[in-house]
């Protein structure tokens, strides 16, 4: 085909295909779900930990949307996780024990909080933005601490009961329902985030991370897009928090803590930011390492986590997925 004729005939479908190229599901993307499914059958004694891993994966994925894609650096994402957790807990204690609707309400509440705080904090950038997100989370935690009548203060919310899922499946002692429920929610959230990051809106988030000025010059209202990403991410974080409440039947102040904001950031950095699957590597790795190290070396386990992080940051920029990329490229070069 001549160069002149090619675009005329082939371009329309080819242009669409080029966009869809990254959108199309690849076989390797089934891997996390296979692992999660296998885990359910192979490790029945670890389902409680498994649910927590799934929940933290969802939380880390929500952070990836703002941090990895939109480039909004935040140290206060626990504000939304905690809001979702408390909303679900308060609802359940006041008689709203149906889990799925409560999950939706908790997500909406966190999303609204994302809009309200985003309107203020997203006007700042860099260090100022970092501090503002931190302040929002700290203020919420202090509010939860003071509003004992609503939140239980330092004792947290106890005695939460959740109605059977879909009116059928009890949240059993072994955590089977909790695990599958968390897995289903994570799957839906992953599908949503995947659609978002591969949509023109998602690409525009990448664009405004790389050059906000250029995005404005091609007609994108930058602030509004950042706010929208922030709100969606907040809602997903809130859903993760609500899941934690519903599967553990407890809410404590630590769901709003700076420590949790930092932990989820570490998980994401371990896995690799801005690539959707970083959360699926980082959260399980961190949680399993924490679980094992806490058994082996209860005094110093945090040290080993720290060491792992230092090694990753020094030797594997881009996290574990970045490392995998480089290994694959090196192998490809050797084969070629």
């Amino acid at each position, binding site marked *: 085909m001549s*160069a*002149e004729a*090619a*675009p*005329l005939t082939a*371009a*329309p479908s*080819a*242009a669409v295909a*080029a*966009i869809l*190229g*990254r959108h199309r599901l690849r076989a390797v993307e089934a891997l996390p779900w296979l692992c999660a499914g296998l885990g359910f059958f192979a490790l029945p004694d670890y389902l409680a930990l498994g649910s927590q891993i799934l929940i933290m994966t969802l939380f880390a994925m929500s952070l990836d949307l703002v941090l990895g894609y939109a480039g909004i650096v935040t140290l206060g994402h626990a504000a939304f996780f905690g809001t979702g957790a408390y909303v679900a807990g308060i609802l359940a204690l006041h008689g709203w024990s149906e889990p799925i609707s409560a999950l939706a309400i908790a997500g909406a509440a966190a999303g609204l909080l994302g809009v309200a705080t985003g309107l203020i904090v997203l*006007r700042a*950038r860099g260090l100022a933005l970092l501090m503002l997100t931190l302040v929002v989370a700290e203020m919420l935690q202090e509010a939860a601490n003071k509003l004992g009548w609503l939140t239980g203060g330092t004792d947290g919310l106890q005695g939460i009961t959740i109605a059977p899922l879909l009116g059928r499946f009890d949240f059993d002692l072994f955590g089977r329902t909790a695990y599958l429920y968390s897995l289903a929610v994570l799957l839906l959230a992953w599908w949503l985030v995947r659609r978002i990051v591969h949509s*023109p809106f998602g*690409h*525009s988030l*990448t*664009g405004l991370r*790389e*050059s*906000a*000025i*250029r*995005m*404005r*010059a*091609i*007609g*994108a*209202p*930058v602030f509004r897009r950042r706010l929208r990403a922030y709100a969606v991410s907040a809602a997903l974080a809130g859903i993760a928090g609500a899941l934690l409440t519903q599967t553990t039947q407890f809410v404590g102040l630590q769901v709003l803590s700076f420590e949790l904001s930092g932990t989820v950031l570490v998980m994401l950095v371990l896995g690799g930011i*801005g690539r959707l699957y970083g959360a699926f590597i980082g959260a399980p790795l961190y949680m399993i390492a924490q679980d094992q190290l806490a058994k082996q070396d209860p005094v110093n386990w945090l040290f080993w986590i720290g060491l792992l992080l230092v090694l990753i940051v020094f030797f594997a920029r881009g996290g574990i997925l970045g490392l995998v990329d480089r290994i694959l490229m090196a192998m490809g070069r050797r084969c070629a």
Partner: protein
Amino acid sequence: MSALLALERVSAGYGATTVLDDLSFRLEAGEICAILGRNGVGKTTLLRTIMGHTRLHRGTLHLAGRDASTLPPYRRARAGVGFVPQEREVFPSLSVAENLAVAARRGGAWTMERAFLLFPRLAERRRSMADRLSGGEQQMLSIARALMGDPRLLLLDEPMEGLAPVIVDSVLDALASLRAGGIAMLLVEQHARRALDFAPRTLVMDRGRIVHDGPSAQLRDDSERLAALLGVRGPEHISSRDGGAGDLRRAEAESGADDRDQRHIPEGS
């Protein structure tokens, strides 16, 4: 009839500093105009001011008869202004097709297919990440991306800079075909000869003002006048082999210490 673009006594700059000083001019629909001048006289700032990236201290800016002085940049883009920055600034972690899709306007006259017809090279590289493109390809992508917004006015900041002559030719060919499509252009250029040949009208700037405005043919035939306007000492600098651009650059380097245009202004200023 109102002009496509009308600047009325505009003073603008970055923060408190003023780069453009009481500057006025009009551009009609479909008009092609070159902007010449030494480094640091405010050519880039003029384009940035039209886009809305600078602070307008005084004066007004009208787009197609409507006051756009206070419009944010994205609204100006939607009103038909396209900007091709000197640094090209393609989005490195998006593919060629994604770079275009991000800028696409729904229902616009420009589609990805049309952009690929204009730059067949981009169609071949449509799956490539933008940071893997050559300089020329990035320039094509930057122009194509600006076109996806359906501009009536294209602001081009030194699009030929650093490109091989053969690429310069193909970029100029593409721009010439846009001229036939009725898109107005403001072309900031260091290659004085190329710019004079391409644009029927030429503005020359000095220290934030327009010091000459007229048909390009006048300056093309009058090397001495051109040299005087551009602040180059002798006409021999202009009439050299490569159209004078190299010598102009050298002359600029010698005169040195001009305030260079601020390329990177802080966010939100």
